[in-house]
């Protein structure tokens, strides 16, 4: 399946781009699976793995590791928010 992935703030800056379209292997069912998959790219991508403070949203709603990833989802990764 194919999903759109967005990155924001310090994460976007360290990765060097703000979005990409990914074709995922069939083994990826949940957001936790996707995070582990991306973290395996190494380097700054390791920030998406366990124990790092990166939050995620699926289709513009905050989502935890057990949330299911569906075809054409918009998935965003970002640091804890600092507005207001």
């Amino acid at each position: 399946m194919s999903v759109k992935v967005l990155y924001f703030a310090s994460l976007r800056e360290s990765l060097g781009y703000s979005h990409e379209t990914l074709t995922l292997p069939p083994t990826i069912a949940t957001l936790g699976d996707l995070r582990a998959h991306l973290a395996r790219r190494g380097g700054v991508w390791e920030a998406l793995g366990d124990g790092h403070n990166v939050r995620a949203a699926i289709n513009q709603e905050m989502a935890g590791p057990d949330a299911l990833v569906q075809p054409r989802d918009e998935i965003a990764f970002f640091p804890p928010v600092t507005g207001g």
Partner: protein
Amino acid sequence: MTSDAPLAAASLEACVSVQAADFDPGAETLALSAGRRDVGAVATFVGLVRADKGAAEASEISVMTLEHYPGMTERSLQAIVREAWERWSLQGVRVIHRFGPLVPGERIVFVGVASAHRGDAFAACEFIMDYLKTRAPFWKREDTPEGGRWVDARETDDAAAARWGSPKVQG
């Protein structure tokens, strides 16, 4: 948005603005009770860019840039307003949050709440700010003449949001 009726989606949308432009706190405050005879209290909060020392502690912030997640930002602010509307007896709510580059002294955020009595107005105004700071997808970057850095989230903000109890709005 000014109505005692359950919130329609359209009025919820109308009470939240995410914009680069400045706003007029006086006009926004007046609008919360304009033409009404049942509003007894309007509580407002205005957040401003402070000229703190930057990360290097050498010189003051010259620019604070707010990044946001267009679409999710509006949805999350609307969810926070909907929850305030359910928790307290309110007659009007207005939330404006700016993005883009801002200099010290500039306004960042406006929260205004109209109610029959001050208790609900004060509480809902503070609740909306506390939830906004921990749940709305905005990120601040501070620039000084020595360089820039992204502002870290603060545990005190999480504690402030947590005192309102278990959220319906996930963060």
